[in-house]
């Protein structure tokens, strides 16, 4: 796991990835794909999407493209075998086999070095690390393939007999590398037949531009702030707070912006992907926060891990066990680092306490205090998330709470706080439903609706041009969730 401040070091990697927020994507790849897609006959549309998606992936991961194709082919074959075995015992064997062949590459590429590091530490050995680059998007497409084979086994999804359609589902470039995790059942019918309407295209464009702006105008700017202040000579208490707050907002805008772009692009091509964020920072408890943050991951773990383990139906002890397993895996999914495991378990503890004791108590206190409580502990969680190992996490926490014997502030941090104040303010307001509510409110009145109809496209064009300007002039453009 790297912080955005260390994100600079991952720029080298993301530079070669054709991210949505890049000139090559916006002004070369996207127009050509749109042209081919809408000119292609209905039967060939999935093939166009597949070829485009493979090319998209190839631009960033030429070598790992074959790994993705292999894992996809494995998922496809296992789906056929599970379906052929139906309810027989071979269905279960095929399912286990599909999980093994699906998860094995993820474990190998993502967790081998973590295992080696800890074995070396524990047994005082010196096994060399493999130092393999993590294939982009492997955590996302692995989970998508697993959702397919498990759902075919459960009888919740029909088997996909066309390898082209199945590959198009797995590799669909809008959501390939950073989610949302689209389950097969969500787009199953749209893979066969989908409608393309002007309404969907316009709404997809709108959503895509909003996501693009969130990423380029806010997330990148806050990433730069994090970078700059990390380089400052003298650390202060205010520095640690500003770093924590700017990272929390940055990761929200970065990831939700990407999800918006994915959902928007999907809609242009006739797909309806699930929502991945729902204003998480207005949550009144951490339980609610996780219903609003990375929704597709939370529901995936709920439906494919938590409920099969028994959920809360088999007594308190097993319920607690299940909670801790799910949150351990959630942390571990985000990266092979102890601080991420710790981050997952941190939420496990809070969620257990909230469900057992605090939710009743929280209900009795004013809403704004509940929101402060949630924001505060979410902020702490992102300090754990952002650290390079547990040592740095605790160092940052000590810094925030004045345990490092450092001054409260200095002129440097005030300078940057002042300089980025409007950006932080805009970001804070944008993270609430206020802009959406206001737009809806204006849309409900006849007079303002007609004005809104003119303003909205103008704002979209302005944002697109602004994003272009920021991309041309800037170089800070890493996507944080590409690492997972």
């Amino acid at each position, binding site marked *: 796991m790297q912080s955005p401040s260390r994100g600079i070091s991952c720029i080298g990697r993301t530079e070669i990835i054709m991210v949505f927020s890049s000139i090559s994507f916006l002004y070369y790849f*996207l127009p050509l794909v749109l042209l081919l897609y809408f000119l292609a006959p209905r039967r060939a549309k999935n093939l166009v999407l597949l070829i485009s998606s493979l090319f998209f992936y190839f631009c960033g991961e030429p070598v790992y493209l074959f790994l993705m194709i292999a894992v996809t082919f494995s998922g496809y074959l296992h789906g056929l075998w599970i379906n052929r075995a139906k309810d027989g015992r071979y269905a279960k064997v095929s399912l286990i086999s599909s999980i093994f062949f699906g998860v094995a590459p993820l474990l190998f590429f993502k967790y081998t070095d973590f295992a080696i590091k800890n074995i070396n530490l524990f047994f005082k050995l010196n096994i060399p690390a493999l130092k393999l680059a993590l294939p982009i998007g492997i955590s996302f497409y692995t989970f998508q393939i697993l959702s397919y084979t498990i759902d075919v086994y459960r009888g919740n999804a029909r088997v996909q007999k066309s390898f082209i359609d199945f590959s198009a589902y797995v590799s669909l470039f809008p959501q390939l590398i950073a989610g949302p995790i689209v389950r097969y059942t969500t787009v199953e019918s749209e893979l066969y037949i989908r409608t393309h309407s002007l309404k969907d*295209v316009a709404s997809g464009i709108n959503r895509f531009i909003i996501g693009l702006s969130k990423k380029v105008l806010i997330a990148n700017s806050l990433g730069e702030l994090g970078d700059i202040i990390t380089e400052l000579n003298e650390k202060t208490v205010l520095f640690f707070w500003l770093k924590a707050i700017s990272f929390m907002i940055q990761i929200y805008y970065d990831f939700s912006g990407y999800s918006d772009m994915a959902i928007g692009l999907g809609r242009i091509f006739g797909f309806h992907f699930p929502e991945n964020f729902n204003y998480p920072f207005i949550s009144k408890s951490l339980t609610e926060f996780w219903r609003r943050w990375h929704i597709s991951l939370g529901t995936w773990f709920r439906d494919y891990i938590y409920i099969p383990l028994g959920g809360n139906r088999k007594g308190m002890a097993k319920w607690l066990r299940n909670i801790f397993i799910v949150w351990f895996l959630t942390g571990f999914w985000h990266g092979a680092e102890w601080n991420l495991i710790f981050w997952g378990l941190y939420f496990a503890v809070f969620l257990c306490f909230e469900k057992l004791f605090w939710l009743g108590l929280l209900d009795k206190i004013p809403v704004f205090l509940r929101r402060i409580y949630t924001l505060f502990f979410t902020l702490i969680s992102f300090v754990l998330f952002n650290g390079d190992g547990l040592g740095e996490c605790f160092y940052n926490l000590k810094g925030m709470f004045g345990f490092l014997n450092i001054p409260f502030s200095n002129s*440097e941090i005030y300078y940057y706080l002042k300089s980025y104040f409007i950006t932080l303010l805009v970001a804070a307001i944008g993270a609430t439903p206020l802009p959406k509510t206001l737009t809806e409110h204006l849309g409900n009145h006849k007079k303002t609706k007609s004005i809104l109809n003119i303003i909205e496209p103008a704002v*979209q064009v302005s944002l*697109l041009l602004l994003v272009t300007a920021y991309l041309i002039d800037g170089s800070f453009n890493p996507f944080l969730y590409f690492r997972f």
Partner: protein
Amino acid sequence: MGMKNIVTTCLFIIIIFGFMIGNIITPDIEISFSERRTLTQAPGFSRRELISGDFFGKFEKYTLDQFVFRDKFRGLKAFMEFKIFKQKDNNGIYIVNGNINKLEYPLNENSVLYATSKINDIYKKHLININTSYAIIPDKNFFLASDNGYLSIDYDKLAEIISESITDGVKYINIYDILSVDDYYRTDIHWSQNRLIRVADKILTGLGSNKKASDIKYIQKELYPFFGSYYGQAAVNTEPDTLIYLTNDTLEKARVFDHYYKENISIYEPERFNGVDPYDVFLSGQKPLVTIENPDSSTKRGLLLFKDSFGNSIAPLLLAGYSKITLIDLRLVSADALDKFINFAEYQDALFLYCTQTLNNSYMLR
């Protein structure tokens, strides 16, 4: 609603297809004069680069550099940063009353120490028998930054570090007191030659010369418009400067020898005003070793001037006190190679003249 959807879709299509076609049909530009750098050209295609992913990385850089209306877009970004987001600076560039400047922060003490160790080494190796001094040119931040709420290095501390670490034989000539922000171009990092007479006088006096630049008659020549290095970086519309240089018969006749290319050049080369860096008018810009010989000198004194780009504009004025000045740019020539080009016995004085920005980023000194 239907009309809004049509307008939204059409505008989006027009923009993405319009710029794609515009970028493809517009010929590639080789040099960005506003940014003073060569722009990335279309990458060559090879199977190795394709497989490694390097091709797409290069292609992205190419698309960024060769985007139509690139400078207009950069201006739009600067406008947003300064006017809408109210950022204090944009890519480190800030503007105070039309004066464009670049943040220099924080103070890099190790860099300053490295610069003084370089000076000490050269002094001990070559200049023991030469009257040696140093002067520090404050960058524009000294005048603009702290008073206007921008981050500023501790200039006193910088001077203190140098004074404490520099070897005893090297004397200090203080020029801080006689400079003001008006002595610098508004759109450029450099100082303006026509405002340096008193600075040249003070340096000449500090070096023990009884000659003064203020005793010499100069003709003032103007070149307009001068878009300085910060102008392009700021990407905002502001009034350009006028580049003024001071000349006379002596300077016109002076022999200027470029040791690297082994050719004679001129003190002023106005034809370079339209090049990538108009400041190259002075002594043809960045050169490792240049010697100026004064044909009308009544003295036989020689000066070794260790300098950065600021030295190019003041050297013609210092010629008032010398028969010969050799300018040495340690960013371009190694200190170890100096004795191959210079007979140190021919010089009586030496001056290390560096801007604070060079001292704070001195690892470029070789």
